[in-house]
C-alpha cells in the first residue's frame, strides 16, 4: 500500500488491507442477513465458520464475541453488526464493550455530548 498512513485514535479505517484480511469473516457476517443462516450458525458455530473459510484468528474472535478482536481480524462494522444482532446486542452494548464501560456509563458518555 502506498497510501500515506495516518493514525486516528481508536479507529481502524476499513481499507484494502483490512478488506483483504477480513474477507471470509465479513462474508460470513453478510450471510447473516438470512434468518436460516443465522439459525445454522447458532446450531453449529464451528461448522459454520469452517464452511466460510474463516482463519484461526477470525474463529477465535468470533468465539470470544469481542468486537475489538473481530475488527483486528478484518471485520467491518457494517457486517459485524449482523453478527452482534444474533445475540440481541445493540449498538450501545457493543460500544460499551469496546470502550470497557458498563452500558450505563456508555450511555452517559453519549448523552454528555448533547
Amino acid at each position, binding site marked *: 500500500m502506498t497510501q500515506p498512513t495516518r493514525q486516528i*485514535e481508536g479507529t481502524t479505517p*476499513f481499507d484494502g488491507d483490512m*478488506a483483504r484480511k477480513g474477507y471470509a469473516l465479513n462474508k460470513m457476517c453478510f450471510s447473516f*442477513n438470512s434468518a436460516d443462516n443465522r439459525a445454522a450458525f447458532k446450531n453449529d458455530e464451528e461448522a459454520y465458520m469452517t464452511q466460510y473459510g474463516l482463519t484461526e484468528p477470525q474463529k477465535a474472535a468470533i468465539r470470544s464475541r469481542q468486537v475489538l478482536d473481530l475488527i483486528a481480524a478484518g471485520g467491518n462494522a457494517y*457486517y459485524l453488526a449482523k453478527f452482534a*444482532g444474533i445475540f440481541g446486542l*445493540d*449498538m450501545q452494548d457493543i460500544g460499551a464493550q469496546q470502550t470497557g464501560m458498563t452500558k450505563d456509563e456508555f450511555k452517559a458518555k453519549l448523552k454528555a455530548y*448533547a
Partner: protein
Amino acid sequence: MAQLIGGLATSHIPAIGNAIHKGLQNAPYWAPFFAGYPPVQQWLGAQKPDVVVMFYNDHGLNFFLDKMPTFAVGAAAQYNNADEGWGIPTLPPFKGEVDLSWQIINTLVGQDFDIVTCQDMLVDHACTLPLKLFWPEGEAPVTIVPININTVQFPLPSAKRVYALGKAVGEAIAAWDSSKKVVVCASGGLSHQLDGERAGFINKAFDLQFMDSLVSNPEWATQFSTLDLVEKTGTQGVELLMWLAMRAALSTAGPSVKEVHRNYHIPISNTATGLMAFEVA
C-alpha cells in the same frame, strides 16, 4: 421539464424502525427525535412531490465486497426491503421511477461518472426509514430513485467527487422531460462511530457547523479528505456524504435555498441525529 422543488436530509438507524414498529414515538427517549418530523411532514403535505431521489448508503444488504460499487443507481420498477440480519419487520416495497433512473444514468455516464446500474436492488433501512419518517401514515405517496454511495470500504469517493455527483444528478432531474415534482433526499450521519476504542464518538460542534454550511456555503465540507471526515465525524459519520450530494443537486435548481426546518438531537443509539429540509429559493 421536471421540477426539483427541495431537499431533505435525515439520519437513519435500524433502531428507529423498531421504535416505529413498537409505537414508541412519544416515549421519553424517542420524543425529541420524532418531534423533529411533523414540520417537514406538513411541508411535504403542502408541496406534494411525486418523486424522491434518495442518496443513501447500503449497510451490507444489497452489496458485498465481491462487487462493491462506489456509486450505484437503482433502475428497478420496484424496490424491496428485506431482513438486514436483525429480523426487524420489513416495509412494503417501494415503486421505482424508472424513467428518471435512466435519465440520471445517461446523464451521469455522459459526465464521466462510472456508476453501477441496478435493475434489481434490495433497499435497507437507510433508504426506507426516511420515507417512513416523512410519510408516517401508510405508504409514502411517491416513487423513488435510490442512489447508493459507498461508505463501507475505503477508498471512499471524496467529498468533492460526491458533490460533483450530486450536481450532475440535479442537472439530470432538471432536464427530465416530465411534469413531475422531485425532491432529493439524503439519508445518513451525522457524527457517529460504532467501531473501535473510539466507539461512541460524537462531534456536535462539527455537525452544527456542517448543517449551517449547507444553507449558504454548501461546498464547505468538500475541503475535507475522507480521513479528515473520519477524524472529525467518526467512522460512520462519513455518511454525511449523502447530505453533500443532496445539497449539490439543489445547487443546480436555483441560486439559493431556504431552510424550511431543522432538528438535531443527541443521542439516538450511538448517533447524533440530524434533520433538515430545504426549499429551492
